[in-house]
């Protein structure tokens, strides 16, 4: 069996094991509302001054300056090459090559993107020290590494945010997304088959158990006249089923929540995300006044895959090495039995979804948008989305 097929079968088997059985007698749902995921990004909490008081990481030019010093240039030479009059995009070719080929494999210089482990003395970037981040309690333990979730007040696990939250790439306050994620999501909308989500329950206007089903569509998202994702379009479920997830959830206390999902998997496309794959996944979502869903998905993800996603995106050249090693340092789950290095990291996504129709290939309508924007009083968002206050942009980092 080919490796790719074997991996797919393993994932399919894991899904089968992980899916909670839904008794046939309880499966006759009175309501099923359809949505399309219209936005997905790493959940950020950008209280920069609190999170990153040393301001060591800086901006792109600051990173380049540090890298130049790391490969042997003096502080003065590095400042000259990245100073106000310099064009860091046009470093001398030999310098740019030395920066690129910082790794050494079998005695030969290779690209640090391909072999980040083979770079001597990799940079240690500043990590988040602030107390707040969005997420979920994934391990049920208090180890001292937790944040406090600003929405629920709970102690949560989000070591990915600790690892990358001081990087310029992830300095964004919603509705703005992290820069490279916003760029690649904008590209993905118009090409990648979209993700579908439906909520099924006896009465979605009240608290109670629900089934949340995810699929992949055959077509990409449609845009409306404003360039946003169009509501009320119809999407056909991809019959291949590679992104089929059936999850148990409940509506309670103003939230739609999903918990205890051994593995949540959505097939994706580069350069956006290679896939969405969360172990021990949890979700919470609410309905906005305009009928859209807003919420968070959390779980453990392979930290190397996340790092690979950063290096493969256009415009993400700044500090990829630093981010790689930061993610490795803060990985907090599933240790490799041989090396002891944790292979997964706790993380949280922020998502939005718009109402939509779902259909099978042969025209059966599986889900419809809710009748009106105030669809579900039980999970309607009553307060604005929690966000940190936007502060002034930090100054350039000092060279040390």
């Amino acid at each position, binding site marked *: 069996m080919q490796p790719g097929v074997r991996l797919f079968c393993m994932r399919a088997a894991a899904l089968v094991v992980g899916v909670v059985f839904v008794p046939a007698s309880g499966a006759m749902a009175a309501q099923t509302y359809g949505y399309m995921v219209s936005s997905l990004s790493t959940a950020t909490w950008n209280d920069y001054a609190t999170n990153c008081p040393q301001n060591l990481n800086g901006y792109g030019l600051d990173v380049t300056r540090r890298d130049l010093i790391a490969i042997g240039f003096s502080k003065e030479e590095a400042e000259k090459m990245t100073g106000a009059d310099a064009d860091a995009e046009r470093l001398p070719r030999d310098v740019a090559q030395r920066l690129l080929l910082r790794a050494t494999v079998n005695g030969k210089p290779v690209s640090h993107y391909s072999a980040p482990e083979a770079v001597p003395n990799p940079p240690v970037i500043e990590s988040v020290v602030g107390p707040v981040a969005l997420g979920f309690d994934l391990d049920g333990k208090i180890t001292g590494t937790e944040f406090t979730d600003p929405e629920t007040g709970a102690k949560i696990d989000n070591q990915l945010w600790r690892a990358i939250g001081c990087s310029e790439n992830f300095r964004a306050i919603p509705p703005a997304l992290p820069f490279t994620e916003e760029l690649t999501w904008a590209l993905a909308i118009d*090409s990648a*088959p979209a993700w579908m989500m439906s909520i099924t329950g006896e009465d979605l206007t009240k608290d109670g158990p629900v089934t949340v089903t995810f699929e992949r569509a*055959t*077509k*990409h998202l*449609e*845009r*409306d*006249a*404003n360039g*946003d994702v*169009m*509501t*009320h*379009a*119809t999407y*056909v479920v991809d019959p291949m089923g590679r992104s089929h997830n059936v999850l148990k959830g409940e509506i309670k206390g103003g939230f739609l929540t999903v918990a205890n999902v051994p593995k949540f998997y959505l097939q994706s496309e580069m350069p956006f995300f290679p896939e969405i794959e969360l172990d021990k996944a949890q979700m919470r979502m609410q309905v906005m006044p305009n009928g859209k869903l807003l919420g968070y998905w959390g779980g453990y993800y392979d930290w190397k895959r996340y790092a690979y996603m950063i290096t493969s995106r256009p415009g993400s050249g700044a500090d990829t090495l630093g981010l790689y090693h930061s993610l490795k340092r803060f990985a907090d789950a599933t240790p490799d039995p041989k090396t002891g290095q944790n292979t997964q990291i706790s993380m949280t996504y922020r998502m939005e979804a718009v109402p939509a*129709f779902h*259909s*099978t*290939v*042969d*025209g059966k*309508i599986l889900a*419809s*948008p809710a009748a009106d924007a105030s669809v579900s009083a039980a999970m309607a968002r009553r307060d604005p989305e929690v966000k940190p206050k936007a502060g002034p942009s930090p100054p350039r980092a000092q060279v040390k």
Partner: protein
Amino acid sequence: MRKFNTKFFRRALCVAVNLLPLTFSAVHAAERASGDPNATSLRLSPAQYKQTIADVFGTNIVIDGRFEPEVRERGLLALGARWANVSDIGIERYDDLARGISAQVVGPNNRGTLISCKPKSETAADDACARMLISKYGRLLYRRALNENEIATRVKLANDAATTTGDFYAGFAAVLSDMLISPNFLFRYRTVEADPAKPGAKRLDGYSKATALSYFLWNSTPDDQLIKAAENGELQTVDGLQRQVDRMVGSPSMESGIRAFFADMLHFSDFETIAKDTTYFPRYSTKINDLAQEQTLKTIVDHVLANKDYRDLITTRDTYLTRSLAALYGVPITDTADNGEPDRFIKHRYPEGDPRVGILSHVSFLALNSHSARTSPTLRGKALRENLMCQVVPAPPGNVDFTAVEDTASETLKTGRDRLLAHSSNPVCAGCHKITDPIGLALETFDAAGGYRTTENGAKINTSGVHNNVNFQGAADLLPLIRNDRALTSCVARKIYAFGTGKMPPRGSAEWDAIEKKFGEDGYNVLRLMRQVALSDIFYAVPPAEVDTATRN
């Protein structure tokens, strides 16, 4: 091959173009001055121009440019074509179009199929080949055979251009451009000859009959078979005319004629200036303008070609939708096309009980007859009365105060009905609003983009009213009343005649009354009606005097 000498080409055309306004003026002045009421001309519409080029040169030819604005008279652009002329800017536009088309015709992609003779040398003039091409295409473009003088003049021009440029094809392109800006192409003339069967009377000549037929049924130039029928006298016989009409009605090209008529009757040209406020209607993207027209035209063509009752277009549940249109309507549609493929039209039937029935629930009617951010029951009622029922709604006086109607944020006048009642309480306004508003208010559950709603500003929308002394509750009750209104069928019949002739049917004509009666007996079958009109004497009638005998409506 030597490079195409654009400098000479432009110089040759410059002469032709500068003379053109004089030519136009001369032709039309001569017509008016002669007092000859039989000489009427109709300017080709943009749709007719494009269809003609596609039928003569094929669909590979891209027509990229703007046309002279059209004139709408009594609800039809076809009626306004009588008065349409060509302005200075219009000549430039036609010239741009002509040069673009002729360059493509002789270009390497199309030359193999469109230039059916091979010149002795590609870098020199060739009399015989030029003559063959000019005769062939001149006949199709001018809709008649060219006389020897016309051919000789153009062959000389082609030869001169070919010699100067060193390119045979450039020479022919110069002549083709000239023909495409000639009044003989841009205008359809009705020319007459003595009627041998009625001494002293006149009749349309064969070419004029062929042209009238072809632009009526196919919205395009006569094909070779029809021109031959004109030349050999077949169109002047009852059997011959019937043979050609039946051939044309049964042809796939008939769809063009049906589309052109209904696009004109339903004022689809207004889509060029329509825009919706995307703050309120984000699903109304710019492509909806084209999709909305196509939805209605596909629905109508399907209906007419299936020989169904015209009246049922008001109440049919069948239509076509794309994913974008369906999202705007708020209904599901399953499209299994591959990712990245464009939207497709898919047949859709609204279920029983659905509020959408008939073409009056289409975006093409609802959005077209609304403002950018709010509905207008008055505009919708007016459109139905005038466009589909041929009834006259007087224009508002110049000093009307629209404040109440436009105040969509009013705390007390929450719905369109409330605001209109406040506005039309003024006795100056009430008279006209009685004609339009009951109909328009029945459609108030459709917003300015065509989406369905049951409330406005939190208040429930009331769609009840009275039409022809019959109470109704909403569109579901009203539309059957409209369907059965005699004005609906009488109007479409009269407009179909007007579309073909450029004038309304003659008042008091026994033949026209018989045609209308037969329309009813045929189950209001539009195809049969068009056939009857095409076979009628009045379609080709040459009026004895210049007085406009058209019915005033």
